[in-house]
């Protein structure tokens, strides 16, 4: 990458809409107070047996307008709040909408009979069009569905579209809704923890699921000079197994190194890491290997899965927004559930909130299909 041609990509505004709150500030305050959204649910419509997850209340209203599915309501509500805090105009030809999700409207398969009309309604292109029309976006929205790295790829894609000068502003929103479809699938993999998950801990037994949405608005407009920047990103594939992570972690390590290189900084400049940390035995082991290979074993690290559960296509965005707030407040959020290190290659897990002078953080994600992604965000 020829550095002289790279445009700075600034973070203009953001939002998190989760069971813990409707704004970034509400969410960050909850996390500072160690409040988790994960609890036990006994919900026949989602699972025949009780399970732990971070879910919205069943009767929670996100927007007043009818005709939108819960997935679309989450997108609209999250984007609305983020736009409020900026003067970015969605109707501007220079603004693009990017949406990330793993399963979008898939819950409709359980409540409606299969038909051509239903198939059309489920399609993420339909949701993207409805959300774009709601705000008046002029350009064709971009939709990314790449398993659990969708949110991080969405940020990287936005950064690249802006760097290339295709657009000046990007509104990037990720969301996923937890349905029986998703719960039963993770149960069939025996991937769910029977308690609040314990990332990187010796006693970890699996993940919790969670629902939510998050938005970041990016711009190359010089008026935002001084804001936090999306500095670099990269994606890699394990080429090993579709449902199990790499044995070595070297592919995630490669993505991390490429992201750091793309950001034009060095490994020592990474002040903390927002890990994927799902709390499954294999994921956390692979991530620790990768961080070791990338020379980041001493950098303070957290996993927010004990607060939000695994929010799938929203995870990369929710966790990046929290970490952006950490940069602003010089405070790394703790890793709930973590007590004793339980990975072979040591990593520096923050068990409690940690004060730090931080300029840059690394956000990583990995998922089914052997996918890995890393993004560097900093001052």
């Amino acid at each position, binding site marked *: *990458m*020829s550095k002289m*041609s790279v445009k700075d990509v600034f973070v203009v505004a953001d939002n998190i809409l989760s069971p813990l709150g409707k704004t970034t500030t509400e969410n960050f305050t909850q996390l500072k107070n160690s409040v988790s959204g994960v609890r036990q649910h006994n919900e026949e419509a989602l699972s025949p047996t009780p399970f732990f997850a971070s879910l919205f209340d069943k009767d929670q209203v996100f927007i007043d307008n009818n005709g939108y599915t819960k997935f679309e309501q989450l997108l609209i509500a999250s984007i609305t709040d983020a736009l409020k805090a900026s003067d970015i105009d969605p109707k501007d030809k220079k603004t693009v909408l990017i949406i990330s999700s*793993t*399963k*979008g409207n*898939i819950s409709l*398969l*359980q409540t409606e009979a*299969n038909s051509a009309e239903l*198939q059309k309604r*489920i*399609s*993420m*292109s339909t949701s*993207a069009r409805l959300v774009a029309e709601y705000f008046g976006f002029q350009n*064709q929205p*971009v*939709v*990314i*569905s*790449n*398993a659990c790295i969708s949110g991080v*790829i969405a940020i990287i*894609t936005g950064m*690249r*579209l802006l760097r*290339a000068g*295709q657009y000046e502003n990007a509104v990037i929103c990720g969301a996923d809704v937890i349905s*029986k*479809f998703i719960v*039963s*699938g993770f*149960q*069939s*993999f025996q991937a769910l923890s029977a308690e609040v998950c314990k990332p990187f801990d010796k006693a970890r037994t699996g993940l919790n699921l969670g629902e939510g949405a998050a938005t970041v608005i990016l711009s190359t407009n010089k008026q935002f000079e001084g804001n936090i920047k999306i500095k670099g990103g*990269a*994606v*890699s*594939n*394990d*080429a*090993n*197994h*579709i*449902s199990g992570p790499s044995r070595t972690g070297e*592919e995630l390590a*490669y993505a991390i190194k*490429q992201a750091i290189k793309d950001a034009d900084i060095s490994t020592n400049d990474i002040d903390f890491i927002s890990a994927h940390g799902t709390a499954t035995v294999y994921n956390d082991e692979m991530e620790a290997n990768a961080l070791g290979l990338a020379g980041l074993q001493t950098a303070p690290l957290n996993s927010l899965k004990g607060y939000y559960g695994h929010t799938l296509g929203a995870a990369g965005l929710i966790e990046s927004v929290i970490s952006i707030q950490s940069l602003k407040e010089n405070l790394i959020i703790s890793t709930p559930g973590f007590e004793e290190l339980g990975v072979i290659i040591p990593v520096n897990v923050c068990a409690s909130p940690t004060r730090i002078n931080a300029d840059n953080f690394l956000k990583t994600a990995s*998922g*089914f*299909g*052997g*996918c890995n992604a890393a993004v560097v965000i900093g001052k």
Partner: protein
Amino acid sequence: MAETNYITSSCSISNGTVNKDINKAFENQGVDLSAFLLSIYQHFHFNYPKFYKMDNLSKLGWLAAEILLQDGFKKDNYQPEEVGVVLANSNSSLDNDLKYVDTIKEFPSPAVFVYTLPNIVIGEICIRHKFKGEHAFFIQDPFDTTFIAQQVNYLLDNDILHACICGWVEVLEQDYKAVLFLVEKKKTEKSLLFSAENMSSIFNKD
């Protein structure tokens, strides 16, 4: 930036026909999709037992990639990280999602659930050929060749990748279409300029 990239190979599978570089390579009309995909596998004498456990979306994409890379692609010219895959379709993994929903009623199947993500087909292609580079799966309706060309050119022009498979892989019940392009930085005898227009013209050929 703005270097020139080339389509050095293409493969399309639709309407009971397989085309390699626009020439018909195989045809089998009047059978259902599963039987058609199996007949392609057998016709080309592929030997890859994992094929049988894939869902139809992965089978279709895997077959198209296999034929795309036959005769001409020099894998040894590239490091694993230098080759990537950028794909799109309009219905994600809905074809397999419908099958998974049926298993929930009895006993949720992990073997079916794992294919309820569109990027699994990318994973299958990467596993087969040990490609470890950048990849992404986009949901679009219709195929947005301008966007895909922009994405792939960014990856190649910035040396993030040196070769990229890109294109469309779609399955929904008996409707299907795959059109894949191999994009490299070197011109060959039969190569075409990599552009949205050239992708569209091959995509819309049948």
